[in-house]
C-alpha cells in the first residue's frame, strides 16, 4: 500500500488541501486530511460519515475548515462561499439534478448570461448557437431548443456537465453521477468524464460503486472516520485493498458464512414472491416472520425504498405476489394497506410524515381518528388514553402533547411519527431509514422502540443504507444490490462488513 506522502505527481498540482480539520459539535468530521488534485480523475470513497461530503464542501466553499490550508495553483486561498469557489474555477454537478425541467436546454445553460442584441432583447439565435457549441465540447448531439425535462435523465445529467464545463473550470466535482442511470447510460457517462479530464480539467469523482471507481479513476483517496487512509494510483489497487481501506478490516473471502443457517423459523405473516419493478427490482422474494425485525439493507438506489412503497400501496407498477397472512393482497393506496394492518414510516419525514400545523398529540392520533370518534365526534378521553402510553413508550422529551410537532428535534419528531403506528390493528411496520436526520442520542431509543414493538408481536421491516447501525439491531438481514436480493445474513454469526461487501459488489 502506498503512503500519502510518497506519491509521485506526474502532472502539475491544481489544488492542494493541507492538513484539513473540521469539527461538528466536538466531533471531527475531518481530521488532518491532505488531499491534492491534478489533471486526473480522482475518486473519493468512504462509508457513510467517513468525511467525503465534508471534504467536498470545503473544496467548493460551502464550509470553511477549522484548520488547514487550501492552495489553488500555488496560492493559498480561502473560499467564502460556493459562488466564490466557482469564480476561482471550482465547479460542481450535484447528485440531485439542479436543472429546470420546464425550460429549454439553452435557457438552462445560458441563464444569467444570455447573449443580447443591441436593443437589450435576448438574441435567441446566438444563444442557441452558443449552447450548441458548449454541448459539442462533450460531443453531445442534443437540440438546444428542447425543454430540459423532455430529455432522458442521463442526457440531462450530461447537459449539467456541459453547463459546468462551459464556465471553463479547473476543477469539476461529480457527486454520485451514475446513481440514477442504467448500465448503458453509465458507460456513456464514463466516456464523457474521460473527455472532460482530457480537456485539462481535474475531476473529483464521488461514488459508492467500488467497481466503477476502480475502473474509471486515475487515483483514489479513501477516507474513514474523518481520516485519510490512503491515496493511491487506481492501477495499484485490488478491490480487497479498497474494501479494507473503507471498512478497516479485511473482507471475508469465505462466502459460505453469508448464507443464513441458524435463524429461528417463525410463522410468516408476509410473503413476497418474485417482486419485479422495471429496472428497480428484480425477482425479490422474502418472508417476514411473526414478531421478527427484518433488516433490508443496500446502498442508496438499491431498491429498498421501492419494496416499502410497494408493500404500503404507494406504487402499483410492479409484478409479483404479496401474501399477507396467507392471502394474496395488492394495495392501490395507503388506506387499504393500513386497513390490512400495515404501517409505514417513509424516509422523507418532512414530506410524507410531519403535519406541521398540528400538535404532537394530533400527529399521533391521526392514524386512528376513526377509533377515537363515535358518530364522527371525537372523544377527548379516548385520545388521552391513546397518546399517553405512546409518549411514555417512545420517551418523548418534553412529554407534552400540546406542543406543535414542528417545534421538536428531528429525533423526537421521528419518534412521534413511529408512535403514530402504535395502534390496534397494526401488525406489520415498515420503516424506511428510520434514523435519517435523527440526533445520535435518539438513534438507540428508536431501535429500542422497534425491539419493544417486535417483542409485543409486531413484525418490523427496517429498510436502511446504514449497514453498521442496523446490523446488530435486527433478527435477520437481507442485502440488496441494484434491485437484486443478493444475500441473507444472520447478524449473530457474521459481521456487517459482509453485508456491505455484498451490497457494493458489482459485476456486469
Amino acid at each position, binding site marked *: 500500500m502506498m503512503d500519502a506522502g510518497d506519491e509521485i505527481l506526474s502532472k502539475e498540482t491544481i489544488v492542494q488541501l493541507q492538513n484539513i480539520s473540521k469539527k461538528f459539535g466536538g466531533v471531527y468530521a475531518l481530521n488532518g486530511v491532505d488531499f491534492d488534485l491534478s489533471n486526473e480523475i480522482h475518486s473519493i470513497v468512504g462509508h457513510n460519515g467517513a468525511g467525503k461530503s465534508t471534504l467536498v464542501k470545503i473544496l467548493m466553499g460551502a464550509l470553511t475548515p477549522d484548520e488547514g490550508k487550501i492552495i489553488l495553483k500555488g496560492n493559498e486561498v480561502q473560499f467564502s462561499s460556493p459562488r466564490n469557489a466557482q469564480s476561482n474555477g471550482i465547479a460542481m454537478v450535484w447528485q440531485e439534478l439542479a436543472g429546470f425541467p420546464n425550460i429549454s436546454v439553452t435557457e438552462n445553460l445560458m441563464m444569467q448570461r444570455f447573449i443580447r442584441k443591441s436593443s437589450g432583447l435576448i438574441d435567441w439565435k446566438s444563444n442557441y448557437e452558443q449552447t450548441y457549441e458548449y454541448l459539442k465540447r462533450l460531443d453531445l448531439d442534443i437540440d438546444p431548443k428542447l425543454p430540459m425535462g423532455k430529455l432522458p435523465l442521463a442526457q440531462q445529467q450530461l447537459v449539467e456537465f456541459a453547463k459546468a464545463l462551459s464556465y471553463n473550470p479547473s476543477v469539476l466535482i461529480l457527486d454520485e453521477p451514475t446513481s440514477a442511470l442504467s448500465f448503458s447510460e453509465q458507460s456513456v457517462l464514463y466516456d464523457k468524464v474521460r473527455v472532460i479530464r482530457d480537456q485539462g480539467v481535474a475531476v473529483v469523482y464521488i461514488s459508492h460503486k467500488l467497481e466503477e471507481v476502480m475502473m474509471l479513476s486515475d487515483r483514489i483517496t479513501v477516507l474513514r472516520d474523518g481520516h485519510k487512509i490512503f491515496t493511491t494510483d487506481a492501477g495499484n489497487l485490488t478491490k480487497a485493498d479498497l474494501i479494507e481501506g473503507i471498512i478497516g478490516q479485511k473482507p471475508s473471502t469465505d462466502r459460505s458464512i453469508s448464507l443464513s443457517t441458524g435463524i429461528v423459523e417463525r410463522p410468516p405473516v408476509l410473503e413476497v414472491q418474485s417482486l419485479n419493478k422495471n429496472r428497480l427490482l428484480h425477482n425479490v422474494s422474502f418472508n417476514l416472520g411473526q414478531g421478527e425485525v427484518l433488516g433490508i439493507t443496500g446502498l442508496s438506489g438499491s431498491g429498498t425504498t421501492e419494496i416499502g412503497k410497494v408493500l404500503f400501496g404507494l406504487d402499483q407498477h410492479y409484478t409479483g405476489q404479496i401474501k399477507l397472512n396467507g392471502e394474496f393482497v395488492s394495495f392501490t393506496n395507503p388506506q387499504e394497506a393500513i386497513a390490512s394492518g400495515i404501517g409505514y414510516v417513509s424516509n422523507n419525514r418532512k414530506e410524507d410524515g410531519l403535519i406541521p400545523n*398540528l400538535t404532537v398529540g394530533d400527529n399521533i392520533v391521526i*392514524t386512528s381518528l376513526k377509533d377515537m370518534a363515535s358518530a364522527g365526534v*371525537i372523544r377527548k378521553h379516548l385520545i388521552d388514553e391513546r397518546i399517553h402510553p405512546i409518549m411514555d413508550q417512545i420517551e418523548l422529551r418534553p412529554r407534552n402533547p400540546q406542543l*406543535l410537532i*414542528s417545534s421538536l428535534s428531528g429525533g423526537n419528531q421521528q419518534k412521534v411519527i413511529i408512535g403514530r403506528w402504535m395502534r390496534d390493528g397494526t401488525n406489520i411496520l415498515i420503516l424506511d431509514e428510520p434514523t435519517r436526520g435523527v440526533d445520535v442520542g435518539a438513534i438507540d431509543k428508536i431501535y429500542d422502540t422497534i425491539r419493544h414493538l417486535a417483542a409485543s408481536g409486531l413484525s418490523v421491516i427496517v429498510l436502511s443504507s446504514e449497514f453498521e447501525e442496523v446490523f446488530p439491531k435486527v433478527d435477520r438481514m437481507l442485502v440488496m444490490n441494484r434491485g437484486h436480493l443478493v444475500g441473507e445474513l444472520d447478524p449473530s454469526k457474521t459481521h456487517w462488513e459482509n453485508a456491505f461487501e455484498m451490497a457494493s459488489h458489482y459485476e456486469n
Partner: protein
Amino acid sequence: MKQQSILKKALTNFSRNGALVILVIAVAAFAVLTKGKNISISNIINILTQVSSVGIMAIGMTMVIIDRGIDLSVGGVACLSVVVAAVGMVKIGLPWYVCIVFMIITGLLIGFLNGILIAKLKMQPFICTMAMLKTTQGIAYYIMQGKTLFGLPEQWAFFGQSKFLGLPICVWLLIVLGFIAFLILKFSRFGRELYAMGGNPQAAWMAGINVNLNRIAAYMISSFCATVAGLIISSRIMCAQTSIGDGSELDAIASAVIGGVSMAGGEGGVIGAIIGAIIISVINNGLNLMAVSPYLQTVIKGLVIFFAVIFDIIRRRNMEQLKANQ
C-alpha cells in the same frame, strides 16, 4: 432582553386574536366618528342582517381554504339555487318547502361536482370553481332571460325578514350554522382530518385519511352554505334576479382571510371568518353613516384586506422567532 420578549409575547397574543382586535378598533373608531350612531341597537341589528349571507358563505369557504382549496363558485351557486326555487314556486306553483329542498339539492349537487373534479380529477380548485361560477351563473342568466321573477309566496319572507327574540331569522341562521361549523372543525373526525390535510396533504394521505372523501365533503358544505345565503338574500328582496350572489365569492374569501384563515391551508377557523365578515360590514356601514362616497368605500375595503394580511404575516414571523428563541 426580558422586556423585549414580554413585549413580543404581548404582541403575539394581541395579534393572535387579530380579527377581534381589528373589530373592536373599527367599532370604536366609528362610534367616535359617527357620534355613537353605529352602536345603536337598530344599527347593530342592521349590520348583522347585512352580514348574515356573506358570513354564512364564509363558513363554507373557511372549510375549503383550510384544505388548501378555494371556492369561487359560491356566488353562482347562490344565484342558480334561488332561480331554481323561484321557477318552482312562481312558474310551476310548487309549495315553498318543496322548493327549499330543490334548492339545497341543487347546491349539494354543484358542490359534489366541484369536489369530484378537484379530488378525483385533480383539477386546480381555482380553475374548477371559476368555471363552475361561470357555468352556474350562465344557466341562471339563460333561465331568467334578463328578467326579475317576483311573486314569491309570503312565507319566503320568513328567512330574511322575520325575527325571533329580537334578532332576524337570518342572523340566527348565521349563529346556528357558525356554531355547528365550529363544533365540526374542533370536535369532529372530519374537522381534525381537514386541518391535517391542509397542513400536509401527502402525509395525511399516507396516514390513511380518506382525503378525497373529505375534500368532496368540504366543497359540498361550501355549496350548501352558498345555497342558504341565496335563500336569505332572495327572502330579503322577495324576488329572484341574476344579481343575487354576484361578486360575493370575493367577499367570502376576504372575510375568511381577514379572520385569520391562512390561504396556505391548515390554519384558522369559522369564528374568525365570521368576525372577518362583520369587520367588512362595520366598516361599510360606518362609512355609509358618514356619507363617504361608495367608490372610496371600495378602496377602503381593499386596504382593510391588505392590513389584515400584513398583520397575519407579522404575527407568523413573531411566532417563528419565539419558536427559534426557545
